[in-house]
């Protein structure tokens, strides 16, 4: 059946020259942000199209629309020249569209064949496992994909699991394949195999959309590349007529919008000193030999695309994850055996990346969330009993000072808007007059007003003599706030720059993992 569909489409496409998939004028708005702004792009049969863009450029939203996970506000989708409406992933599959998600959707306890049989196929009903296995063997042979149908998925290395994901799509008859940042977890060798395999599939007439933010992956693989920025298409280029530098500039090269005045303070003593910090987990090196110093009265930025070791770095700096090697000093004292309590006692404050998962206990009240880290202090408890009056006064003061719009300190944190929730976290962390502030994506999902508030508070902390470490995926944010910043890619710091010497092209190349432009 698989063969039939492919053969049919191939001849159809070659005859008419109609693109396999065409998106026209796709627009999708979320409250406060236009994720996709009149996007038009197409991919032909036998073509590999790169889709390049920073975090939040709208790549994932666009592909979720194609795959039927989200509905566009306007625009049309054409598959082989015919307009289609895709409301569910099932319909996408019926149109021959398959998607490999960044996070694999496999059942680890089942074998490869069982996982493939699980996927909704074009022929509903029971498929015989032996037949699935036979077909899998054929597919693996044809594409040179090494996949053992009897292997248990949980025991396979990541590269092999990805092959299973792809073969699942082939089994379902996909001829338009979307791969969402497929290389995040791959070793170089696995990546080489994957690229060869993708090429062989394209040679058979399938179309592939390859989503990435890594520049060097595009060269030698894709035919054309469409660049997205802020939800809109910046341009589509033939890969042969372009360079990494040109693509980097397209990806980030807007006029940097400085969103705030950056106060200049003479930096004081080093508050955070990190030397050769390395974090390994399950045989993979997530953070590799990172060294930097943040001084009092300074904002040090870490730029980079998400998933390049930032989460692990932050977890280690606040004591949630042990260092594999390297050392850590806070306020001049060795803190290599840090835990969150010691971090707080050393004057550390953290604004975590995900306020719902890590920042707030949503079902507890604002008052309770505000005293979380200081509940043992005499101001809020005495002999094991909470001092509700002290905590209440504290909460009321903070609600006023941080302009938190809430009916009162005894409402659940869940009832507040995202911006006000973030203010609660800022209030808890910054009101302790910290010596070191670690802010990880502090404006994620906030509107402009709340964003400016966060920037002001971080600058105030800096003026008050705190050392601020700002980790952000938004280059604008880094450039607006940081006195100096490093670019992180692949778990390493590639370069440390001052805000003045950063030009978008160079930073774009660094963020794409190009060491020295």
């Amino acid at each position: 059946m698989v063969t039939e569909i492919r053969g049919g489409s191939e001849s159809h496409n070659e005859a008419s020259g109609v693109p396999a998939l065409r998106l026209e004028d796709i627009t999708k708005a979320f409250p406060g942000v236009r994720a996709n702004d009149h996007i038009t792009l197409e991919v032909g049969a036998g073509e590999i199209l790169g889709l390049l863009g920073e975090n939040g450029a709208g790549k994932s939203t666009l592909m979720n629309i194609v795959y039927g996970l989200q509905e566009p506000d306007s625009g049309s989708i054409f598959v082989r020249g015919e307009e289609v409406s895709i409301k569910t992933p099932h319909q996408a599959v019926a149109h021959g569209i398959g998607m490999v998600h960044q996070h694999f959707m496999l059942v680890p306890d089942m074998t490869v064949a069982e996982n493939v049989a699980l996927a909704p196929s074009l022929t509903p009903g029971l498929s015989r496992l032996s037949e699935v296995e036979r077909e899998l063997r054929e597919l693996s042979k044809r594409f040179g994909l090494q996949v053992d149908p009897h292997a248990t998925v949980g025991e396979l290395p990541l590269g092999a699991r990805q092959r299973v994901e792809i073969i699942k799509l082939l089994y379902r008859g996909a001829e338009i394949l979307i791969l969402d940042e497929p290389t995040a977890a791959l070793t170089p060798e696995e990546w080489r195999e994957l690229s060869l395999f993708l090429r062989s599939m394209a040679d058979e007439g399938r179309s592939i959309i390859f989503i990435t933010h890594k520049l060097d992956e595009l060269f030698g693989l894709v035919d054309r590349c469409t660049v997205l920025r802020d939800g809109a298409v910046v341009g589509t280029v033939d890969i042969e007529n372009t360079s990494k530098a040109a693509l980097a500039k397209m990806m980030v090269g807007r006029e940097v919008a400085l969103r705030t005045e950056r106060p200049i303070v003479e930096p004081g003593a080093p508050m955070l000193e990190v030397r050769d910090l390395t974090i390994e987990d399950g045989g993979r090196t997530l953070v590799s030999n990172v060294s930097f110093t943040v001084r009092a009265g300074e904002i040090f930025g870490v730029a980079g695309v998400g998933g390049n070791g930032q989460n692990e770095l932050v977890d280690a700096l606040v004591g949630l994850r042990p260092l594999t090697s390297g050392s850590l000093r806070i306020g001049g004292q060795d803190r290599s055996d840090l835990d969150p309590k010691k971090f707080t006692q050393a004057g550390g404050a953290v604004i975590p990346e995900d306020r719902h998962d890590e920042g707030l206990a949503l079902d507890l009240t604002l008052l309770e969330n505000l005293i979380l880290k200081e509940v043992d202090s005499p101001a809020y408890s005495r002999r094991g009993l909470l001092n509700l009056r002290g905590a209440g006064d504290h909460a009321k003061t903070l609600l006023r000072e941080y302009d938190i719009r809430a009916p009162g300190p005894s409402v659940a944190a869940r009832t507040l808007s995202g911006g006000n929730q973030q203010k609660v976290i800022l209030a808890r962390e910054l009101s302790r007059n910290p010596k070191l502030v670690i802010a990880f994506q502090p404006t994620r999902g906030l509107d402009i007003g709340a964003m400016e508030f966060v920037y002001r508070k971080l600058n105030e902390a800096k003026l008050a003599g705190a050392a601020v470490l700002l980790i952000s995926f938004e280059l604008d944010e880094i450039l607006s706030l940081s006195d100096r910043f490093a670019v992180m890619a692949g778990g390493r710091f590639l370069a440390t720059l001052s805000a003045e010497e950063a030009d978008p092209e160079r930073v774009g190349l660094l963020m794409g993992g190009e060491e020295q432009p």
Partner: protein
Amino acid sequence: MSDLTKSKIRQGVLDVALMLLVVVIALAIALVFIAIYGVSPGRAISAFLQGAFSGNFNLGSTLSKMVPLTLVALGWIVAFRGGRIQVGFPGQIITGGIFSSIVALKISLPIWLHLPLAVLAGMLGGGLCAWVAAWLWAKRGVNEILSTLLINLVMAQILDWWVQSPFHDPSTPLPQTRALPTSSLYPVLLTNTDLHWDIILLPVAVIVIAFVLARTVWGFKVRVCGANALVARHSGISPTRIGTQAMFWSGALAGLAGASLVLAGTTPAMGEVFEGGVGFNGIAVALLARNSPWGVIPAALLFAALAQGGQVMQATVNISSELVGIIQGLMIMLVLAATTMLYLTQRRRRKGPGERELVPPPELRGAELGATP
């Protein structure tokens, strides 16, 4: 009155109304069964009400049945607020009873020392039984639902052996211990009834648990761990340590219930079936009370009345007491359904201008029903 107080009161009224509705629906369905059974609903209702509340004896029995139910429900609440779902109450009640019976039978002391010691032993037994599961969870990552469930089976077998072999009363073929000395028993509060002095545990335990959870630092930490373990870790609170402690005290409350069942029972001996389903019914009481310590009192009253009234109903109008089981089961299902529905509608209302709906698409996230508060 501020808007905040008003909305809180509105929420409270809504909660109570919802639970009352659940009770009424469950009873209405039960009446349908009674009618099918061929008994006039009017007769059944009056038999039930008389059985549960009329006369010193019936009222005393109802109140005395409330005590262990309340204690177990409070135990569930302590563990649940700490994010732990332990269902080992039957096993912990049995362990508590065994510990109490040892102190009662093997030591002789004056009552002012003997009874408290037997009661404390019961608490210790229940706490230790829960601690085994807590330890497995904290150190080895064993799911506490599974381990407590399995420990229940083990404890039931141990009790069987206990009352047939080492502690068996040789003067009777029944599987039960020798009569416990009066100095180890709760004195009767109301003569010619089953109501013993352990009834004072009911208000005391509710007040203590409500106070501990709301006003102490330990209770605060328990609630933080239950609300968000990662936030707890960020705040220097160890969810494994606090969770282990919460499970110990949860078990201790079940052990206290076990001590009551043995030391304030209808017969002054520990039999093979003294647990009598209290362990799981206590969980249902906590669910009906929506995990509020104060709500436990009316919920336990209802379940105790159902049990007592059901027994009498069986004797007077010849309706199987299994019917009571049907009513209790219906209530549990309806409570869960109503709580989930309430949670969903509240979520939908709050969704409004959220920023979280951006990524990832809801289809890719797991079902969030597991997080029903």
